[in-house]
């Protein structure tokens, strides 16, 4: 999932402004695979362990003294829509742990006119191991950023 210019982005109750995109990747952490006696192809493939990685990139236009720390656990929430009208808008929630926080400063500290970026990476976590840590719910006609 890739969401450009999401709105109402928050993590652990703190609002994050200027988020340019949220990227959510799902990968197999382990694959169960079995071959039978009847041909060259796998007869069974399943993914009993999967990893959900989240990357949030936001613009930083001034000095920033506070930041999340690796190991922080909380709910990352944001709203997204596929068009400017807000139709079909959804709210995405992911319970996740911060795994990496870094900054990119184009052109060095002078900035050269382009804003710096803060990149926070997460790994999603499920409370019971079976419930998907990511949920997507419709905003029922409300525009992006609207109340639900």
């Amino acid at each position, binding site marked *: 999932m890739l969401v450009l210019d999401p709105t109402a982005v928050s993590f652990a109750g703190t609002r994050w402004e200027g988020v340019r995109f949220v990227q959510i990747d799902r990968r197999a952490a382990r694959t*169960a695979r*079995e*071959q*039978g*006696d009847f041909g060259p192809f796998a007869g*069974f493939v*399943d*993914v*009993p362990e999967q990893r959900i990685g989240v990357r949030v990139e936001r613009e930083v236009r001034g000095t920033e003294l506070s930041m999340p720390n690796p190991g922080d656990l909380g709910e990352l929430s944001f709203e997204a829509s596929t068009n400017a009208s807000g139709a079909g808008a959804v709210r995405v929630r992911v319970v996740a742990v911060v795994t990496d926080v870094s900054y990119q400063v184009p052109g060095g500290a002078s900035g050269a006119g382009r804003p710096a970026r803060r990149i926070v990476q997460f790994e999603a976590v499920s409370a019971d191991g079976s419930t998907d840590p990511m949920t997507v719910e419709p905003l029922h006609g409300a525009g992006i950023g609207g109340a639900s």
Partner: protein
Amino acid sequence: MSSFRSKDLFGSGPHRMVFARRGQLVVPWAVLLTDPSARGSDSVGDLEFEVAVFGRLVAPDLAGLLALREAIAAESAYATSTGTLVDTAGVSHSGMRLYRFEEGPRIDRGRVFSLSYEARFRRLAGPTP
């Protein structure tokens, strides 16, 4: 389709059957005579015929998987009589005993519940005079 004693024990998922080595059982004279100085060896008969099954049990839920596992475990009990093993090529092997059943390291919980395993059958020769 494979079977043992007419039961489809392995059909829930893919499995492969492999024959163990065949030929003669060769034993050193030092073992036969319990004399470390004895040289050479001799054949004391045929190796017992053995078939290994490597596969995965697959079920839509945990209860179904545990039932599949217990069905095989029951056939591997000492009290269970020998029977005919039909391999994946459809060839029958009579007088076989399921003498070992080993599970993989974990039950995999993904789209379905599954468990890898290794089962071994052997035609035991029994004591010889």
